[in-house]
């Protein structure tokens, strides 16, 4: 029997396999940031260990960093200490670091692909659950905890039990105004936040093939929101074209060798997935979440559901709690919900295509008076690219705030937070209680819906303008 893509990458990286034990898997690339690494470096120091492969490790500052006045010292002393600790650790252990102000600084999952160090067939880990983003290149990429960060720093390996595999088949053609964000929100609503637990997802089908690399990254990014540690897409010409000529892409004979390997990275026609899910792209519409987990989503044209209509007691209880937290009443049309803040950014939707698509909707118009629009590019390079295309002016002229790169309001570790009771339409990945600021309320949307909502003041798609 043939192998799935995930099984192929897995078996290529097994260092040691003993019956009754997890496989020891080699890690090709380890991404580091300031929040989940300090205790890991401490562990190395305590045990008198080195970083085994600094040349397969790269760090950036993203979670904590301010998006205003980045030329000044970080104002929050606790954030500053954490960032300074990363700088000291990288210096001590010889790890490459892109600090605030550096042209390569940005959200770790935006930086890897733009440098070309994210490539097909690799194993990639990071102490961040959205590492699944890199799966868009046909890499096996997943988030790890700090103990595992230390393990990879020390040994460049991880002991892991191979997950099962699940195919997410998305056939058909997306309608105008429907994006890859809507695909993944629909997938999560269908299988639930636990549906992918224990699986590696492989996104397949004509609708996935038609997506750009950046749109594919959005899909893979939110695999974890469906419970799956990793989600991937087989590499194809779109992937190869994206990687080629990036700073760390293979060149010359290495490119040819890499390409001939990458072309083998598909699921064999006779391979069997442990589970398959089908979605029809023709039927998808702009999606929005109404609750406090990413599985609580509906098409924008729907209304807030009635918890009493949920047959499962757990879902009913969760819906009741969610509506109370979100201050929403059953039956309210989603399009009538008024929003205070729109956040355009994050590792889910903070890349150049996301900014371009939102700018196209906003160009020449003004955002609703009652609302603030925060635009946070995913990396310093994305910001520079956007500025060279004049997108910053489009946003600023419309009344938006144009910021520097980082995770920002996706998780509110820096000063970019919602106030208690404030409601946001956000292109990020999590609508958890208080995620974007204590007491804040989040509706997850695509960049197109975010832009239209910013103009209208209520949840809207460009077609509603």
């Amino acid at each position, binding site marked *: 029997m043939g192998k799935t893509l995930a099984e192929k990458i897995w078996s290529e990286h097994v260092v040691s396999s003993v019956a009754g034990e997890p496989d020891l898997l080699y890690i090709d690339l380890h991404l580091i940031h300031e929040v989940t690494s300090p*205790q890991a470096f401490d562990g190395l120091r305590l045990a008198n260990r080195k970083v085994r492969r600094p040349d397969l490790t790269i760090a950036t500052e993203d979670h904590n960093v301010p998006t205003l006045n980045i030329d000044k010292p970080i104002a929050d002393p606790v954030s500053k200490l954490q960032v300074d600790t990363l700088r000291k650790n990288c210096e001590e252990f010889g790890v490459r670091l892109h600090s605030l102000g550096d042209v390569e600084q940005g959200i770790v999952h935006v930086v890897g692909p733009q440098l070309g160090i994210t490539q097909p067939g690799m194993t990639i880990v990071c102490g961040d659950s959205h590492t699944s983003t890199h799966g868009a290149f046909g890499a096996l990429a997943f988030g790890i905890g700090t103990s595992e960060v230390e393990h990879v720093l020390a040994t460049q390996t991880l002991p892991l039990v191979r997950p099962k595999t699940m195919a997410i088949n998305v056939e058909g053609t997306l309608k105008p105004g429907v994006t890859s964000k809507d695909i993944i929100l629909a997938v999560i609503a269908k299988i639930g936040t636990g549906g992918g*637990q224990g699986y590696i997802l492989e996104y397949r089908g004509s609708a996935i093939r038609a997506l750009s690399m950046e749109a594919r990254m959005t899909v893979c990014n939110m695999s974890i929101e469906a419970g799956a540690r990793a989600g991937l897409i087989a590499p194809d010409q779109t992937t190869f074209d994206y990687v080629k000529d990036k700073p760390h892409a293979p060149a010359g004979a290495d490119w040819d060798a890499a390409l001939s390997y990458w072309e083998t990275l598909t699921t064999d026609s006779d391979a069997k997935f442990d589970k398959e899910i089908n979605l029809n792209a023709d039927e998808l519409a702009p999606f929005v979440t109404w609750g406090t987990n990413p599985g609580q989503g509906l098409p924008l044209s729907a209304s807030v559901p009635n918890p009493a209509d949920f047959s499962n007691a757990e879902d009913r209880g969760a819906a009741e709690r969610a509506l109370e937290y979100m201050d929403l009443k059953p039956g309210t049309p989603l399009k009538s919900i008024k929003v205070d803040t729109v956040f355009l950014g994050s590792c889910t939707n903070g890349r150049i295509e996301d900014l371009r698509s939102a700018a196209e909707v906003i160009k020449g118009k003004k955002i609703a008076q009652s609302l603030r629009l925060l635009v946070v590019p995913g990396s310093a390079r994305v910001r520079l690219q956007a500025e060279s295309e004049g997108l910053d002016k489009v946003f600023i002229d419309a009344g938006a705030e144009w910021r520097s790169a980082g995770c920002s309001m996706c998780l509110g570790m820096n000063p970019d937070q919602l106030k208690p009771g404030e409601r946001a339409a956000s292109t990020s990945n999590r609508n958890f209680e208080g995620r974007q600021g204590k007491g804040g309320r989040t509706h997850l949307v695509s960049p197109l819906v975010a832009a239209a909502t910013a103009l209208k003041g209520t949840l809207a798609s460009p077609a509603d303008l």
Partner: protein
Amino acid sequence: MEKFIKHTGSALPLRRSNVDTDQIIPAVYLKRITKNGFEDGLFAAWRNDPTFVLNQPQHKSATVLVAGPDFGTGSSREHAVWALQNYGFKVVLSSRFADIFRGNSQKMGLLTVILSQDEIEKIWQIVESKPETQITVDLESKTVSYQGVTLNFAIDDYTRWRLMEGLDDIGLTFTKIDEVTKFEEKRASYKPKTLPIR
């Protein structure tokens, strides 16, 4: 890591599903650079509500957390495990755990036990009516027992052995480090390196 063989203690009934790691410990608490002192951030937002179960005096000394399904979803922050351990929890019972949270727990010696939702419901009811109920979680016999009831749970033999011996994964991997070196010698030359900077 501390060995885990058997633990007996009272329980905290947390009747909520999808308890994500942002609820277990909000991001603002993640700025610290140590592994301890996170107990003040545990369920920080919910603890503002005086009726929240963790604030109820009858559950003050609980060491076994009994949670709804899909516990530990979301962010990979191991701080969620540290916060639970710093507060004093030794075991979490749930019908479903998020993968990364479960992995992090097993690295740190916080035992995560999967029971059916029916069994969780029964434990909630007992603990809510008799908060002093003692629950014993025995990793050796793979059982959870309380008031004459004994439930079996599954855990893979390797993880069980590692937890019972309190073994550090990194130390175990170093016993195979020659195999890692051999693997590295065969890696393709086109694989990317982060250094030197291009």
